[in-house]
């Protein structure tokens, strides 16, 4: 069976109106491009909401503004528009690469930045039809009591697979959130709760209004993902790297990974790698950091170990290329 509950579609034109409707309809869901939400709802995932609140008609949420140093992207900006934006292509190529690597053109014209950042976590036991899930006893993430990926687990390992988050995390991304108290900003990393089930740390009524990115002078950044085919595929692993050179030395390094953990991982302790050159010894310490912080759960049909390893390979390569300057990663 396919579910299509005849709920209401609300289309606010200001964030205030959106918030008011959100407060009035506690059992509502936020609709960006719907490329994740609509598919999931039709599969009977999530309580059927009374209303969908469409965030696409709010002007301030559809704008990209900024310069080579800082960028503000409205949450309802389409990924196609982000990938094609001249400012983004010129100064934030890693972001353009990430946006352009999502799904395919058909989906990118609908998919929004906010929806990509707030993309539901994914798992082979979850993104399935109602019949499929019912016949597999549902799962811990929704409707069931057991995690089929890690049967003894009390937490859900469903994987965060959005392509944009890592590219923004390495650019010191911050989200602007609308809620009861008005607007607040938070580091993008804090948007995620680290639990595959309730994967966002937003309050019930809150929503993301925009996200900002910064490109410090001399920063080089890039995004790459690995997948089996060339399009319409979530990352088996996706890696963003931003680094700066200090002469022959690594001056700054930020690395973020999607597709392995229930949240996009902003690698910790990378500062310790800075201050020296990029040689094999450093890269081995880098591998160790990644291995320690990335998970290897079988939430896709590709083995988790492979995905973690692939992330490591991609990360190494990006660091090398950006450091050597031989990659289209220069932001200025």
């Amino acid at each position, binding site marked *: *069976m*396919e579910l*299509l*509950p*005849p*709920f*209401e*579609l609300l*289309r606010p034109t200001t964030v205030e109106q959106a918030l008011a409707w959100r407060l009035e309809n506690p059992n509502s869901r936020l*609709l960006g*491009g*719907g*490329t994740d939400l*609509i*598919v999931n709802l*039709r*599969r009977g995932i999530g309580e059927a909401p009374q209303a*969908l609140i*469409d965030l*696409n008609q709010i002007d301030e949420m559809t704008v990209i503004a900024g310069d080579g140093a800082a960028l503000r992207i409205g949450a309802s900006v389409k990924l*196609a528009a982000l990938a094609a934006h001249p400012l983004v292509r010129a100064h934030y190529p890693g972001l353009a690469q990430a946006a*352009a690597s999502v*799904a*395919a*053109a*058909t*989906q990118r*014209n*609908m998919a929004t930045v906010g929806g990509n950042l707030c993309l539901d976590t994914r798992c*082979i036991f979850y*993104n*399935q*039809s*109602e*019949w*499929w899930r*019912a*016949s*597999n006893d549902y799962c811990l993430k929704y409707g069931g009591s057991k995690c089929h990926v890690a049967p003894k687990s009390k937490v859900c390992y469903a994987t965060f697979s959005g392509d944009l988050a890592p590219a923004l995390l390495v650019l010191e991304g911050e989200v602007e959130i609308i809620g009861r108290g008005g607007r607040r900003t938070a580091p993008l990393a804090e948007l995620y709760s680290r639990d595959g089930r309730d994967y966002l740390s937003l309050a019930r009524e809150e929503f993301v209004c925009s996200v900002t990115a910064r490109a410090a002078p001399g920063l080089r950044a890039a995004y790459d993902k*690995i997948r*089996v*085919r*060339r*399009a*319409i*595929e*979530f990352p*088996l692993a996706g890696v963003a790297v931003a680094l700066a050179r200090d002469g022959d030395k690594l001056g700054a390094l930020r690395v973020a990974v999607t597709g392995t953990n229930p949240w996009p991982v902003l690698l910790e302790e990378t500062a310790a790698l800075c201050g020296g050159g990029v040689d094999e010894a450093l890269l081995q310490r880098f*591998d160790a950091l990644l291995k320690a912080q990335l998970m290897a759960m079988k939430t896709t*049909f*590709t*083995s988790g*170990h*492979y995905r973690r*390893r*692939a992330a*490591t*390979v991609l990360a*190494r*390569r990006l660091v090398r290329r950006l450091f050597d300057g031989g990659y289209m990663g220069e932001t200025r």
Partner: protein
Amino acid sequence: MSAATSFSVNGGTVRVTAPPLKRLADVLREDLGLTGTKIGCNAGDCGACTVLLDGRQVCACMVPLGQAAGRAVTTVEGLAEGGRLSALQAAFQRHGAAQCGICTPGMLLAASDLLARDAAPDEPAVMDALGGVLCRCTGYRKIVEAVLDVAAPQADSEPAAGSAVGARLAKLDGMAMLTGATRFGADAIPADALWLRVVRSPHAAARFAVGDLAPLYDANPGLVRVLSAADLPCNGFGVYPDLKDQPVLADGVVRFRGEAVLALVGEKTALEAIADEAVPVAYEPIAAVVGLDAAMAEGAPLVQADKPGNLLIDGGLRKGDAEAALGSCAARAEGVFETAFVEHAYIEPEAGWARRLGKRLELHVSTQSPYMDRDETANILGLAPEQVRVLPSACGGGFGGKLDLSVQPLIALAAWLLERPVACVYQRPESMASSTKRHPARIRARFGCDAGGILQAVTMNADFDTGAYASWGPTVAVRVPVHATGPYHVPHVSARGRAFFSNAPPAGAFRGFGVPQSAIAHEALMDDLAAQLGLDRLAIRLRNALRPGQATASGQVLQASVGLAPCLEALAPPWSAALADAAAFNKTGGAWRRGVGIGCMWYGIGNTGLPNPSTMALALGRDGALTFYNGAVDIGQGSSTVLSQICADALGLPLGHFQLVVGDTDLTADAGKTSASRQTFVSGKAAQLAGEDLRGQILRLANAGPDAEIALDGTALRVTDGAARHVIELDSLPAAADGTVLRGEGSFDPPTTPLDDNGQGNPYATYGFAAQLAVADVDLALGVTKVRKIVAAHDVGRAINPIQVEGQIHGGIAQGLGLALMEEYIPGQTENLHDYLIPTVGDVPEIEVIVVEDAEPLGPFGAKGVGEPGLIPTAPAILGAIRHATGVRIARVPALPHRLRAAILAQAGPEDDTP
């Protein structure tokens, strides 16, 4: 909750009253009758539903109606301008970019979006723009070519009488596909039809009981009837007359997950509202037999109680003494190769509708085999075959998967009992769970040759997992031993093919009937032998290529049209160039290694050692209408066009006069099924004979000689024989009830003999041959493969229509690439198009087709088939390229990145795991 929503469609404003969350795709199709927008998955995975929203391509299956309010929607119906095809549509037609046509609307709109922003895009831009629309037929190359060539002028000249064969002719049914007018299985369902929803087993193996249905009826007034096994006069079907082992609705036992248990018939919305758990079926799961090892194990539970050892069939072939000959070979190679279940993944899920007309039943379905559908449905319902009429809709891809029954018996039974039209359209997950698959195989083979590389002996033991029911399992197990040697001359052969039941979806027919699996084995072993002897991989194949006058493994002496050697010779220059290029590339170092591989194949055209007849008819009416009655359904491969070309030239009239009646079981004769690459050869010959028959009648009437020219001018048939001219006034001839005044008929059943106990005989009248080379780059640290180029040399006898030939080869190559690199159907798991991956446009490399025409004397104008040959050598060639690049012989496909990486690692030893 419905509200009125206004938006514009193709330039005009519409107002639709429907729930705001209704999918735009459904609104277009159901509320606005614009069925050109297709639905392949309803989940954003396939792009069949692509439309333009304010000029940008989007999946209409994910757009809620409310979001379209006030915006402009463009569908395929809006592309033609003033009744003329747009430049893009014309380019699609010119290039043969539509095969089955189900993806065509989405492709056209995706390309329109791009072209509106970039009038002269380059290839990467086209690939990016089309990346979200899946096509299973064309291999995408002709679509990309068409978009790149959109600016070229339209030149549509029709070939003159006698010159249709060999012409690069656009498809006769192509126009309708480009405007959205083609009606597929789900497109012409009457508004008053009841719908049918199948309740399927969630268990791979279980006993079940159906509980009290009264509460279900009470709670759902729109539910009209629940059908169960007890309602079926004869509850068994299967493609073999003596093997009707698959129930239409399971009777107390289910043998695979997704098997049909009950059918709910009623109003569409009522059916959709019924939760699965509201249907009272109590299952008692039993241990499932999963995989070949379990099926073959001593004392394994029996999938079908009366099939001991879970064995469906044990077929074999013996020629000479392979064991002894192997013993004295200078070089020997052996290996075990495994393949997975592969899903057909046609973009059109199973669909159709049925109605009862008095004592007769009409079935409108998407099918590859209308006559088999008719006979099977009649048998199940206890009717005479003549009581059933099958009117095939356009078929949105088949590849073997629409040879078996799906919706047919269910909608037929419901329509018969309820005396109302009844429709059923499968959802993607149910299509994937319940339809047939390619057989998983485990093939153990040994090849031996002398010191000069000349093959002496081959043994092959091929075991197939045939799933829960027989379907085409026997065909696969019998065909593979015949093809075990590959297209080579081998004096000593011992080959065995067995198929075992398991609790999985039935494995059936899929492009190549097992031969693609065995080709992976024989080509890997040929590479082994070449390596052992230090021979070039192409050279060893050429040395062993079957030649006219030589006997095959089944002892059949091939006299003509044995074109492997010319294929290999044609491939030699690109082969040397590719090897040199790879060597140069690999010198540069880096993460990627380039490899070149080669694959050869042969393929017997038509059924194996069984009768294979086809009959075609061509009628002239008293009104001058020339009607070609063609029972061969065109599933996208272009048979309607190709058979018409043949028939036209045999008759000697231009193709423009032809009107087609295709596949209607009341009006056309049985042409057999569209499978086994047989329609061009078998039905083509029948079409030729039909054309010649009619021509002979005309010439006799005119008393003209064999070289006379015929022209049709209204109702006047003018015959010119040198200086003599004669006019036959058609409206003055005596006419049959339907107005026919002259009727030509042709039948052809290719000469074959059954295989004897040793598998010896002439199972096919002719064979296709091919050799392909693949260039692929492998990222050693990631195990990722990128195929860069394929060169495909195919002996097709005669290319009746080179565009269609290339299209078949391209499409086969894309499926072969999927088989090699990404496609793995895991029963109960990958039941959707985002977990089951098929190639997208960017995955299919540049393809160069070399057509070799080694004429087949039996075939129409020398032609034989090409439907399956395109696919068979591709996976071996790609795997050969991977091996050349990495040194790893892949023993299990698909070579997914994690698998290839593990194999590279295993070869290098544990020390070498640095990225």
